[in-house]
Each structure stands twice: as C-alpha cells, then as structure tokens.
C-alpha cells in the first residue's frame, strides 16, 4: 500500500544549519497492517511520518501510495488526498477549544464540503465507535485527556480513511488510559481494516504492533 524507496530529507538545504533528517529510508507497508515506527526524539521518525502522510516534500527518493507518487501532487491535490485517505491522531490532541465535541469531529467533513446533516450523521456514528456519543455537546476543554484522545480518533475515522497516523497517541495520557486508547485503535484496525502507523518511543506500545521499524539517526537500523 505504501512503498517508500531511498527516502532522503534534508532541512535548510544549502544553508549553514543544514540538517539531514533521513538518510535513505526504504520500507513497505501493507494494507491492514499495524506498524510501529520506533526511535528516540530527533531520530527522524516524525519526519518519516510527515513525508508518508503527505505533509511535507522529500528532498530525494520516492513514496508510492497505491499508484500515486505523493510528491508529484499539487498542494491542492495533496490537501484533498490527506482529507480523503488519511487520518491523524496527535499527542497534543489539537481539538478546537471553541467548538464542541461533535463540531470537532465534523471538521474534516466540513473541509471536504459535506452537507451539515450528512456530516453530523457520520460524526455521530464515529463518536459511537469511540463510545463518546454521550459527550457530543460538551466543550472540548471540559473533557479528560483520555476522552479528548477518543474524540481525536473519532475525528480521524469520520472520513473513513485508509491509514491512520498516530503520533505518540498516549504521550499525554496515564498508562491505564493510554492502554485503552491503544486497544481502541487496534479494534478499529481489526473491524474497519484501517492501516495503523504508530509513531512512538515506547517499546511496550510498539510490541503490540505486528511490525516494528527502529529508526536511528535517519536510518532504519532494525525491522521486525
């Protein structure tokens, strides 16, 4: 599904503070897999995720998403691509504080241009999937950390994406809540067949995934 070949990313190319984040990474991820990308901070794992999620352009190399070469797309095509095919779950949640739960979940559909009644219907379904429907009218900042992350997951699955990129999804949660969030993500992987790519430095979490990819200094040092 995702095929990365010889990917290189250099920040501030040609400037004094030039920094090579990825030094030729190749990997392949199949549909429906759960993959952990492991590494310390600064290892390049986030950069890899950003490139695979079409948030950034590589300096060199190629990413194929099905038959699409990601960096050949225009900015508008890339935006549409992210909106339709990719879901994001972030460590810091990034919920809109001035919107309530259901409005937050509706955001990606609103960006897509879906009608209001349609997106509310879909958002309610997504909230039910993460067992948060009872909080649909709460303000985002009235929720606990675990509840916030559930809403984020609902926001990620409401567009029925093929892949979810989860960037340290349990980083701001206590271990018990984090465990539940991870279980939820795996459940969605099983029931909906969504490919799950987990970016983390937590080995315990990574061990739950089918595959682990270790990254250090911009290179894959181990795959299992």
């Amino acid at each position: 599904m995702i095929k990365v070949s010889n990917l290189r990313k250099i920040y501030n190319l040609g400037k004094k503070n030039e920094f090579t984040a990825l030094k030729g990474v190749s990997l392949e991820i199949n549909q429906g897999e759960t993959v952990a990308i492991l590494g310390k901070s600064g290892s390049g794992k986030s950069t890899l995720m950003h490139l695979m999620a079409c948030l950034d352009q590589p300096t060199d190399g190629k990413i194929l998403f099905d038959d699409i070469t990601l960096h050949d797309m225009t900015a508008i095509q890339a935006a549409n691509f992210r909106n339709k095919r990719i879901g994001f779950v972030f460590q810091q949640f990034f919920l809109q504080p001035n919107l309530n739960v259901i409005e937050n979940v509706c955001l990606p559909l609103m960006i897509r241009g879906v009608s209001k009644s349609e997106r509310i219907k879909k958002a309610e379904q997504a909230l039910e999937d993460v067992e948060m429907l009872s909080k649909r009218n709460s303000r985002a900042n009235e929720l606990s950390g675990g509840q916030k992350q559930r809403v984020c997951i609902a926001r990620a699955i409401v567009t029925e994406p093929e892949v979810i990129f989860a960037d340290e999804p349990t980083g701001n949660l206590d271990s018990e809540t984090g465990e539940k969030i991870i279980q939820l993500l795996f459940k969605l992987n099983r029931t909906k067949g969504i490919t799950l790519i987990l970016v983390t430095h937590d080995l315990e979490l990574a061990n739950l995934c089918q595959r682990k990819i270790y990254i250090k200094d911009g290179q894959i040092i181990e795959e299992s």
Partner: protein
Amino acid sequence: MKVIDIIQTSNTNLLRSPLRTFLTILAVFIGTLTLTLTNGLGSGVKDFVNKQVSAVNAPGLITITPALRFSSNPLGEPEEYNPDNQKDDTLSTVSLGQEDIDKIKSITNIKAVYPVYRPKAEYITRDNDKKYTINNLEQYIEGLETPLAAGRFPDPNKNEEILLSYKYLGVLNFNEPSDALGQSVKIVYKNILGELKERTYTIVGVSANSLAGSVTRINLNELKEISYWQIGREQGSPILFAQTDPNLSKDELTKLKQELREKGYNGSSLEDQINQINTVIDTIQLVLNAFAIIVIIAGGIGIINTLLMSVYERTNEIGLLKALGMKEHEVFIIFAIEALLIGFWGGVFGIIAGIIVGYGINYFASTTILKDLEGFTLMIFPVQSIIPILLGTMFVGLVAGTLPAIKASKLNPIDALRQE
C-alpha cells in the same frame, strides 16, 4: 469547503474572544459614526441651500456686478493720471448707472437690463392706527419666481399691486395668507427734504418664509419713481439684473459672460451661484470627511493588529486544519472574511448610531437654534451616501485583513503543529 461553512467559521472565530473583537470593531465604529455625521450634515445643508436657492426661480436672469479693477500692484510705482482709465480699489466706490445699462444692453442675447432700486420706506400700515417699520422692500421683475404662501405675483404694469411678506400678516391682522388677498395697505416714504409720501397698494400675493427671509415686493417702475422722488436724481446701483432668453445654450451663455467680462462686468446666473455655494459646502464636507477617514484607517490598523495576534494564537489550529485538508486559499478566505466582518459590523453599527445621533441633533436643533427655519433638517442620510460608507469600511477591513490572511495561509502545517 462550502461558502456558508467558511463564513460561519470566520464568524465563530470572531466570537471566540468577544472583548477583543468588540474593541477592534469599536475603532471602525467611531470612524464610521463620525463619517456618517459629517456626511449627514453636508447633505442636510446642501439639500436645504439648494431647496432655498432653487425656490427663487428666475429663468434666464443674470446678476451683473462690476469687475473690480484693482491697482495693478499695491507695492508698485505711482501711475500717471488718466481720466479714462480709473481703477477702483474698493467696492463701495462702485455703482452702475445708465451708461453701464446701455453698454450691457448692446450685448447680443440680452433682452433687458434692470437696475436695483431699494428706496427706504418709513412705515407700513393698514388703518393709520398701528404703524410698522418695513425695511425688506424689494423690486419685482417680470419672470422672477419665489415661494408664495398665497395669491400671485404683481402685474408688471400695475404699480399699485404688492406682494406682501409673510411676516406682516400677524401685525396687519390677517389670520390666513388668503385673508390678505385683495386688501389694501399703505406704505409711507420720506425724501431728503423730510417730506412724506403715502402710497396705497393692493395685496395680490403673500410670499412664503425662506432662508433668504420673506420679502415684500413692489413693481420695479414704482420703486424707481419713489427712489427718484427721494433723492431728486437717478440713483446708481451696486448690481444689475439682465434678462436673457431662458433657452440659451451653454455655449451662448458662456459667450455672453465672456462679452460681459470684456466690457468690465461679471455675470453669474442662478445656476452659477448654486454651484458656487455647493463647491464651498463640498469643500467643508471633504475636510470633515478626511478626519473621519483617518479614524477609519486607524481602525484598519487595529484590525491588522488583532488578526496578526489571532494568527499567532491559532498557529496550531491552522496547522491542524491544513493537515486535515484545508487549502491555502480557504485559510486565506477565512481570515479575510473575519476582517471583512469586523469592517462590516463596525460600519453597520457606526451608521446606525450615526443616524440615531443625527436624528437626536436634528430634534434638538429644530426646537432651538433652527426654530425659525422651516424645512431645514440639519442632517439627512440619503441611501446613496450611506451605502458607500458601508462598502468603504468593508473595503478597509478587507485590505487590513490581507496581510494576516496571507501569513496564515502560508503557514507550514508541520511547523504550525510543532509549535507549542
């Protein structure tokens, strides 16, 4: 994104920090309020002056004044005496006589020239019981039209007919303007020898109140006769009236005025005078408006400031929206509309407040300082002057929003999400 969703998003963002939005709108509001009032005042005064001046309708009548021949240079050398080339330095020395009338009459397209006679009258009375001073006595020239309260203008051939001023109705015991019609009044004049002369007139019309005041008019020939009797000779006149064909083309009129100028006179039609007054009012209004516009521009800078702060505060959020698939131009439009809405609401509230304050001032003025000026509304707010104000404030908002909107739209989603 759907247009309705974009507008709603902008609106929600504005309501996020209501106090800040309110204060930003306030600056635009104050500017718009001022602009509405200055515009309203200008429109009101212009409307009134035009109504009053155009109420005096004299088709084809041209006012002629002598072109002043100032000494060429007050600091220059004394010139040699020449009786045929005398220069007048002050207006008081100027008076137009029969010689001037003949000169002007010779110009093509001028049908008749009238001097101005204003003999001093001692008093006006109905029954010799109560006598009242009368000092706004003016001549009636055929073709002159002023607002009438009742009746008609005097017949130019009947020296005994009079158009009575509205002001004298009460003191002469007439209840209604129409009661005066057909009645007679006496006016008594005095000459330089101290002799008195009593003339009896029949009231054929009553002139209405106007900005120029309500005047009593008597036929030109009658006043000429009185004037001659008073001083024993033909009297000079500061201005002359020339009657032209009302259907003269613009070119013919320009040519006529040119000829007058060559002969040493200035000619101005009623239209010229209205235009002159309007130019003065427009200039005053422009200066007042300039102050208000400066306030609105300051308000625009406030909008830039507020939105830039908002972009910094919402960096994470903008990053997220872009990651979720929002396009650059959509981010731009959301911020631009926020600015537009600030301008719009500032404009709407400013205009509404301006109109309310304006009506308050109108009410106050009409019961105090402008009590006697009927038909004068100090401030008027025509739609064609209100709409441009609103469009103007929205435009200022939009321009002010451009910089923050570009900044927001160019944010890189990764950097934006990374920022704490």
